[in-house]
């Protein structure tokens, strides 16, 4: 298991009588983006702090790059980059001065630090504000500066806590692109978010968190299959024929649900797009849209907990 960078076993955190993190197990591999997703108060931040040795564990263990964060926090923190929830910088200092301070704490030689800082700021598109005070930075710029710090650190693992919260859609998109950039550079990324749909597109695997436990873990498609049932959901928009009737005839189709005027959501046990197109066109219908639907994590999450509640 040489390519496992983080491995948690029975990791637990108890505050008084409240189990904030309740015996969770997971592992993160080199070069993947792993999403720790769940509502506020689920225990995501607590899990992250335990991985960094910033809060003590109450039970279980976690291994980060072969080190134990409880006993060897300095070794862990040398190799792991952390972007806290709503990260802060010293407002009276410039971006460069802020990163310089971090570089000194990391004992990076001065010369090298300067080149690394310039490169890192370039990579997050902040090169033009390198010598501006951080006080003038927007929320999105601060988050990017936090990413730049991780890039400068040459971290092997990046842990990002709610990296997109409070950002507008455009900044979110940019930031997610930078997170993909980290992955391309070979960094294993763990990110947490309470906004499931926003980050699901970047995550290779996700863990759905609820009340201190991991409810589900796997790729988005795996989870969708597990919870929403196996199948390929597609969206069909067509006119000029008995579309619903035709769709039900297609081999492999399981459900057909109308989605507004002239649109249907179809779930089949295989990819039926070619067959659907052929049938509608030969029946004289006009096919205006035929789309492969991504399963929505939000839907997976809601459905899973509805069922869990019903079962209870």
């Amino acid at each position, binding site marked *: 298991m040489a390519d496992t960078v983080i491995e948690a076993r029975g990791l637990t955190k108890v505050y008084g009588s409240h189990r904030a993190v309740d015996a969770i197990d997971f592992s993160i591999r080199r070069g993947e983006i792993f999403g720790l997703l769940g509502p506020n108060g689920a225990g995501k931040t607590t899990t992250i702090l335990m991985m960094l040795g910033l809060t*003590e564990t109450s039970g279980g263990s976690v291994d980060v790059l072969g080190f134990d964060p409880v*006993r060897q*926090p*300095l070794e862990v*923190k040398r190799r792991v980059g952390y972007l*806290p929830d709503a990260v*802060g*910088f010293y407002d009276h200092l410039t971006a460069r001065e802020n990163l310089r301070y971090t570089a000194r704490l*990391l004992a990076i030689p001065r010369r090298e630090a300067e080149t690394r800082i310039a490169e890192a700021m370039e990579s997050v598109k902040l090169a033009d504000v390198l010598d501006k005070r951080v006080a003038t930075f927007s929320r999105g710029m601060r988050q990017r500066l*936090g990413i730049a710090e991780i890039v400068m650190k040459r971290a092997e693992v990046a842990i990002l806590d709610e990296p997109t919260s409070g950002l507008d859609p455009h900044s979110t998109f940019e930031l997610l692109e930078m997170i993909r950039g980290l992955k391309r550079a070979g960094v294993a990324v763990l990110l947490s978010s309470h906004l499931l749909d926003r980050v699901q597109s970047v995550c290779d695997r996700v863990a759905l968190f609820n009340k201190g436990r991991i409810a589900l873990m796997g790729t988005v498609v795996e989870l969708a299959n597990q919870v929403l049932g196996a199948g390929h959901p597609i969206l069909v928009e067509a006119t000029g024929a008995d579309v619903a009737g035709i769709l039900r005839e297609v081999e492999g189709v399981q459900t057909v649900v109308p989605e507004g005027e002239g649109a249907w959501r179809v779930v089949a046990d295989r990819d039926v797009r070619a067959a659907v197109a052929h049938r509608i066109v030969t029946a004289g219908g006009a096919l205006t849209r035929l789309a492969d639907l991504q399963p929505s994590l939000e839907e997976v999450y809601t459905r899973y907990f509805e069922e869990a509640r019903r079962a209870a």
Partner: protein
Amino acid sequence: MRRNDSRAARRQGSPFTGLGPVFMKELSDHLSSVRMMVLTLFVLAFGAFPVASSLQTLRTVVDPNSFLFLRIFTLEPEQVGISFIAALNFIIPLMAIGLGFDSVNSEFNRRTLSRVLSQPIYRDALLLGKFLAGLTTFAVALVALWLIVVGAGLLLLGVPPRGVEVARGLGFLVVSVAYGGVWLAIAMLFSVLFRSTATSALCALGLWLFFFLLWPQLASAVVSGVAPSEIRSLEEYAAVQDIAMGLMRFSPGTLFSEAVLGLLSPETRTLGPMLPAQMRGAIMGAPLPFDQSLLMIWPQITGLVAGMVVVFAAAYVIFQREEVRA
């Protein structure tokens, strides 16, 4: 954050990793801050009056044996009614509080704490680096002030200080830094205890006022409570005074003024059981040699340093247990 002892003992790596960078950053923050300029102006304003009037008075004295230079510090000019050291007794805590009241909680409020602590350093280095940087800043300001006073003395009195006066003056600097260190540690303790910088400033200033205004009254109230209704002998009187002095010495200001009295008024032969205010002039005699004076005030110096260490340790222990998340 609870760090159980067996685990803390087994943690690896030096607790001082990163101390240097923290110290340098905090020092440069202090030295370039507006707050530092305000504090300096404040000290100059408060120090200038007593020193200027002392110098006026001393220009008329022509006695080569009378520790002329030291009297710039200790003389209580009639126009001002307060000596330079009495002003410092009052001002030093204020400076130290100004340097320390927001040192830890501002990192919480700026949300920089968890980011900084995710770099390879322990909390030990962060807290100690901040303390040492504050103390250094304070020492720099104090030395500057001291040089200004001595320089003004040289210019206006026209005679250089004797070697022993310089030695006693330097001793005074060391005692002042220790006194400032106590208050810096107190201010930092409050900055660890309270997330709000306003609350921690208020508490530190409250404690300062308490020691200056209420503590002497409280001490005498306690003493009159325990003292026999009628004091019949000198021994009884001395015993009561001892209790009073003991209580007063819980105030860092008392330790400071006693130590400074011993250093800057060489004729002081004993620090008890009378109150220091009654001391001056009461026992006039041949001045003590420097080492004898030092021996006499040693308990005071130890007390100040011990107070600084104890308060800092308390701040350290609390900071270790604190959650880093804002």
